[in-house]
């Protein structure tokens, strides 16, 4: 933070994870350690401004709601995408003005809407008629942002399914209903899905948004906000550049009027690469076949699926831990399994090849900043990792 937060440690030039570990006194820390490089967020924001200057990022708080991260982004001037009353409270509590916030959750309990009204968080998404009725009752002078699905879907809105109305079939009906109830629709939004890897998805969706704008204007709504959602990759900057170019081209073609405000809801783009999680092996077991041959090594870490690896629930992916052993590359590798600390059979982090490790050895996992800590939980009674923040001088 500009004014110097006590929780932030400063480094010269580049953050040296190994050095941090050496100084971290990990022998006396039971839980895993998260190392957050705030300068990485700053770099990401610069990259965003450089590649998509017209699009205002509204950080998706649900991705990582650590107050230090949120405050850091707030001080850098980003907007925020909040999904619930608690997220609104967090962001407003940091002094962010309500016009920098979009309440981007299309199914909200009445009390959340009343809170948004009290706080004058005026922009909110809708994707179904019930929400429109509810808004009429609880927040009639808010700005409705019609959220549509970028892929057509048959189901109405299954619990646990993604949000969004159908662009062709429902968006016009929702805007008509809003008009009939005296509410104002001011824009449209979509979400291509977190960690989108398909560049064309944005252009397809922006084309649909253009149609929704036309229909909205015809109905008599003043359409002035386009929200291109999230899905921007957090690690692969080349991919991000490709997406940015595609979005820019599409936006210039379909929304040339500069008075139209364009926002987005990136989450993992900002925070995913900023975190490195350091876990400690606290137990190991050798699994041998019947004839006594070594089959697999099992390592038990001090963090797992119920901690910072909770994202594995949603986005199972391969992990490639870094080892902080000398000459780790030249050591022979064995078939290994790494487990979390709970006694739950689900608490398996990965199958992989590792050199022979011993209790006390450390494993570093990069890119652990997105959809990890907010989900990390006291489910099984283990401490969640401690996070320490670092920033370039």
């Amino acid at each position, binding site marked *: 933070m500009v004014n110097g937060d006590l929780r932030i440690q400063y480094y010269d030039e580049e953050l040296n994870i190994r050095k941090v570990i050496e100084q971290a006194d990990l022998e006396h820390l039971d839980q895993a350690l998260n190392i957050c490089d705030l300068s990485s967020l700053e770099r990401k924001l610069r990259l965003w401004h450089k590649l998509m200057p017209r699009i205002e990022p509204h950080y998706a708080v*649900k991705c990582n709601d650590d107050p230090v991260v949120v405050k850091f982004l707030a001080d850098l001037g980003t907007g925020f995408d909040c*999904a*619930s*009353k*608690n997220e609104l409270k967090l962001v407003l509590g940091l002094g962010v003005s309500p016009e920098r916030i979009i309440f981007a*959750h299309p*199914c*909200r*309990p*009445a*009390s*959340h809407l009343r809170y948004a009204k009290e706080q004058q968080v005026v922009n909110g998404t809708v994707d*179904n*008629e*019930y*929400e429109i*009725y*509810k808004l009429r*009752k609880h927040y009639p002078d808010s700005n409705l942002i019609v959220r549509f699905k970028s892929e057509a879907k048959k*189901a*109405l*809105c*299954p*619990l*646990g*399914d993604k949000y969004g109305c159908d662009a062709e079939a429902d968006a016009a009906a929702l805007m008509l*209903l809003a008009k*009939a*109830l005296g509410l104002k629709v001011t824009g449209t939004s979509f979400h291509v899905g977190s960690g989108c890897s398909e560049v064309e998805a944005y252009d397809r969706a922006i084309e649909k948004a253009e149609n929704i704008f036309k229909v909205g204007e015809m109905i008599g709504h003043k359409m002035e906000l386009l929200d291109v959602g999230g899905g921007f990759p957090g690690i692969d900057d080349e991919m991000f550049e490709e997406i940015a170019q595609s979005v820019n081209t599409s936006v210039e073609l379909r929304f040339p009027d500069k008075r139209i405000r364009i926002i987005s809801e990136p989450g993992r783009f900002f925070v995913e690469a900023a975190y490195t999680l350091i876990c400690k092996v606290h137990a190991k077991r050798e699994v041998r076949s019947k004839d006594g041959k070594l089959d697999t090594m099992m390592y038990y870490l001090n963090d797992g699926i119920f901690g910072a690896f909770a994202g594995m*629930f*949603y986005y199972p992916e391969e992990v490639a831990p870094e080892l902080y052993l000398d000459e780790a590359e030249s050591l022979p590798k064995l078939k290994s399994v790494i487990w979390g600390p709970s*006694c*739950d059979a*689900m608490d398996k982090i990965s199958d992989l090849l590792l050199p022979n490790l011993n209790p006390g050895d450390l494993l570093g996992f990069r890119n652990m900043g997105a959809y990890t800590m*907010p*989900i990390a*939980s*006291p*489910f*099984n*009674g283990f401490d969640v990792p401690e996070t320490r923040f670092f920033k370039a001088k």
Partner: protein
Amino acid sequence: MPSNMNNKLDPVFSSGFVRREFNDSGIADGKLRTISTSSCATTMSSESYRISLGVGPLWWSDVPVHHRTDHDRASLLTGYSRKSSVDSAGGSLYEASSRASSLSSSQSDCSDLESQPDIHSLCSDDDCQEVLRQILQHDQPVQITIKLHVTEDQYTNWNTILNPVNNLLYVALPKDLPPAGSKQTFISLLEFAEEKLEVDGIVMVMPKDQPDRARLIEAFLFMGFEPLSRKAPQAPPAAINDNENYYFLYSIEE
């Protein structure tokens, strides 16, 4: 709802629990078969309630009629009944709803099974107030079965227990979630708890082997639920040794 889930949910007992069993023949004969195996039934109120909630402007009688769709009709259901008149239907209703949610073509079946006084009774706001008043006068945990309608014929029964001592509503996630539209109906449950029962929070119990667990957890987290340690004071006492379920807390404060 499997009875062991009820046990986990139960905010009072850690070993004994109230269990009721029903079968279809009992219903057909018009006889009620209630088996209680509880050793300490006095700690749980012997009455239970049913509330039906639906998507749409449930408590919003001021919605213009011409905007109503078929879906909205369900929202006017606030049928309820006390245990004495409900038990005979309760068991079969649960069966019926499981069938309804797995087989949408069985809709006409299940309406036949439903008992008349309980279901599809449009009740006035005064009636709602009355059943609420009865629920709220309990000073011991009381069971409320909340029937969430997606449409008039599609619904799921959610077993809940209101514990007036800590003012929390305990909700068990049904095994069979309806296929569609349930996000809005679930919000109506949250609103009912907050605005009508005026609880301080909702504790939800989800089996770890819940199908589609990841996306459900994601949806609940985005709605404002937070993971709750099974050792937390808000978790039911039986949770402490429970490795089968996740617990979530939705805090309500004004």
